[in-house]
């Protein structure tokens, strides 16, 4: 109701009540109406489109699922009476499944691979739980249960390794070694020097003591492990359980897993890396690439934005060089050319060379992704951090990188997924990853004509992993969202 008052103002006195929306705007009917049925020609298109999709999907499902042969003996199980193959023959995948998973890794030793992945899962699980699940009695209980389970499944040595990975974070939480050392901000050089010296000492001690007790072959890995362990002890002061878990997973687990896979000591048979293959190899290459590319990429992204000309030039050169060449070239160079430049008798493992190549290659991509994030952070964030007296590394670690990395999660995951699939290229240097071993199996005279099944299976496995990575990244994005659209 509007009134015109004596002085000419137009005034409204009552509030208009809220009315229910018309039927076509809400609910199931509203959705159907707007998206499929209105106006009439959209209803026609809906019918035609629906029919085409139904026929296509039905044909695929019929070949892959409904008409497919799931069990039987040999190729014959899938053939019709006149010898034709009409539907998918999963008998092939079933028969070769373990080879697809492990490559030529000897059957008796495959438990090592199983155990190492189980260990990874067990040790990493607390990282994904809420804090009160990880520390205290619950955390210790989980660690105990895991150790017992591994003991039953794999015996005493694996149980010991599991116990270390699971219990250590709880004990190491009380580590205060770092507090006894000179603080790095009192006298930067002395503090840094003491820490570096301790690390090297720890490494050397681990090398000789470990080598003397267990054997020469393991000495180098043990040395590295104890070097990193000393690093953790002096650097992680008052770290939480989760921080220690992350530390052990990043710095200790890879060495332990590598020792386990190669063997040659501890009563384990030596298995050369040329025998590794299948999904196992794919995960090793992709896992190494993913784990290494992010930190290396961050360093080069920071380097590229540095004020120091030398650092900046080196970073730009690294990024442009690695990004400018195809991955196939990198792999070829590492496997064929590099040995030519090395002196006689010096020999790196071929897989190791490929791993380094893949890691550096993807690090260059990652550096550019991260740089995009760094550039999106407003200058005010840097200024606020500086004005509070934070140093460069504190500012980057606490303020800039958490925000920048969050912004570029889609880009990072994109690179991860790309890398995961690019690992199939190791085929050209004679390593049999999942795709490689499936391809090899399809050329087996006993199983001719199974290429489609092989590729569909491979595609499915890759899709499962990539989709998993993608969903997890979306979850992380949601979790890190703090509603800061405003500045």
């Amino acid at each position, binding site marked *: 109701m509007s009134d015109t008052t004596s002085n000419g103002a137009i005034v409204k006195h009552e509030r208009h009540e809220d009315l229910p929306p018309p039927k076509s705007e809400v609910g199931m009917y509203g959705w159907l109406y707007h998206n499929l049925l209105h106006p009439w020609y959209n209803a026609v298109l809906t019918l035609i489109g629906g029919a085409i999709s139904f026929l296509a999907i039905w044909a695929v499902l019929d070949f892959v699922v409904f008409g497919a042969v799931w069990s039987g003996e040999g190729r014959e199980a899938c053939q019709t009476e006149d010898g034709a193959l009409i539907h998918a023959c999963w008998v092939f995948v079933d028969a070769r499944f373990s080879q697809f998973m492990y490559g030529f890794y000897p059957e008796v030793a495959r438990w090592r691979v199983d155990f190492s992945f189980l260990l990874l899962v067990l040790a990493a699980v607390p990282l994904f739980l809420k804090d009160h699940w990880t520390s205290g009695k619950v955390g210790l209980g989980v660690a105990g249960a895991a150790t017992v389970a591994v003991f039953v499944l794999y015996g005493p040595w694996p149980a010991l390794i599991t116990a270390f990975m699971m219990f250590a974070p709880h004990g190491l939480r009380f580590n205060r070694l770092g507090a006894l050392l000179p*603080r790095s901000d009192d006298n930067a050089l002395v503090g840094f020097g003491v820490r570096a010296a301790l690390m090297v000492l720890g490494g050397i001690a681990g090398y000789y003591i470990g080598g003397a007790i267990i054997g020469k072959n393991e000495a180098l890995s043990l040395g590295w492990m104890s070097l990193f362990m000393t690093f953790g002890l002096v650097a992680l002061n008052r770290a939480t359980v989760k921080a220690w878990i992350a530390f052990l997973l990043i710095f200790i687990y890879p060495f332990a897993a590598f020792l386990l896979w190669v063997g040659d000591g501890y009563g384990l048979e030596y298995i050369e890396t040329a025998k590794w293959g299948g999904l196992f190899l794919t995960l090793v290459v992709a896992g190494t690439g993913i784990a290494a590319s992010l930190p290396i990429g961050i360093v080069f992204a920071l380097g590229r934005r540095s004020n120091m000309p030398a650092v900046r030039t080196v970073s730009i050169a690294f990024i442009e060089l690695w990004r400018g060449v195809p991955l196939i070239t990198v792999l070829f160079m590492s496997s064929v050319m590099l040995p030519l430049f090395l002196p006689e008798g010096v020999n790196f493992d071929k897989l190791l060379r490929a791993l380094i190549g893949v890691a550096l290659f993807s690090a260059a991509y990652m550096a550019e992704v991260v740089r995009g994030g760094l550039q999106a952070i*407003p200058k*005010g*964030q840097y*200024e*606020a*951090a*500086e*004005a*509070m*007296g*934070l*140093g460069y590394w*504190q500012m980057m670690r*606490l*303020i800039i990188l*958490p*925000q920048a990395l*969050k912004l570029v999660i889609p880009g990072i995951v994109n690179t991860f997924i790309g890398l995961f699939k690019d690992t199939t290229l190791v085929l050209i240097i004679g390593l049999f990853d999942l795709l490689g071993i499936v391809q090899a199996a399809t050329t087996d005279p006993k199983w001719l004509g199974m290429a489609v099944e092989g590729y569909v299976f491979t595609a499915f496995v890759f899709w499962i992993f990539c989709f998993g990575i993608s969903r997890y990244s979306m979850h992380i994005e949601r979790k*890190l969202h*703090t*509603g*800061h*659209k*405003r*500045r």
Partner: protein
Amino acid sequence: MSETSAETAKMQVSDEAAIEISGMHKWYGDFHVLKDINLTVMKGERIVVCGPSGSGKSTMIRCINRLEEHQRGTIIVDGIELTSDLKQIDQVRREVGMVFQHFNLFPHLTVLENCTLAPIWVRKMPKKDAEEAAMKYLERVKIPEQALKYPGQLSGGQQQRVAIARSLCMNPRIMLFDEPTSALDPEMIKEVLEVMVDLAKSGMTMICVTHEMGFAREVANRVIFMDEGEIIEQNEPEEFFNNPQSDRTKLFLSQILH
């Protein structure tokens, strides 16, 4: 208002210098931004800097904590000279708090974490003590109930008050304010100014770049007018507003005091 201003003007100003700037020049490339700046700020003194945009007022106070580098002259803050020595810069920054026009809170941290970050990492304060201190300052700026929210969930005025509390958590001896109310809606300016007045009355050494002339009259001991990179005029607020000496000051005041 005039009574309170008389009262606050008498508030103790020590005869010790907190900041001494002498013969300071700064260039951006060819552009001479700051020309022969000489300014001594006593401990406990509250100074308001005003002037048209582009006059170098922000740049000047940003030189005081070395967010900007000066090329000639000396700046001595709390007895420490600002040179390219990183250690001395860090020492100065620990003692000098700064509040920005756009707040610059850290959006990925809660209000409480924003406040405790620097005390924990720069002052190496135990987390518990830092949190206690932070709550005390959040109470002082009247938003303790927002401690666990993220900055993006607060209004502009609340964010700026958090920014002030965040600076205070470092226990600074000097506070710099760079147009703290310019990005705020009119109804939020008051709540921020109240906090600043309260802070001024507690005897904090402050330099505020602001156009809030009411604030200047109420708490400042001195108003400084800058134009084209120079300090044109400085005086006590009453004199400055009622009896400006230079033509440029008169012109500026006529434009902002309608």
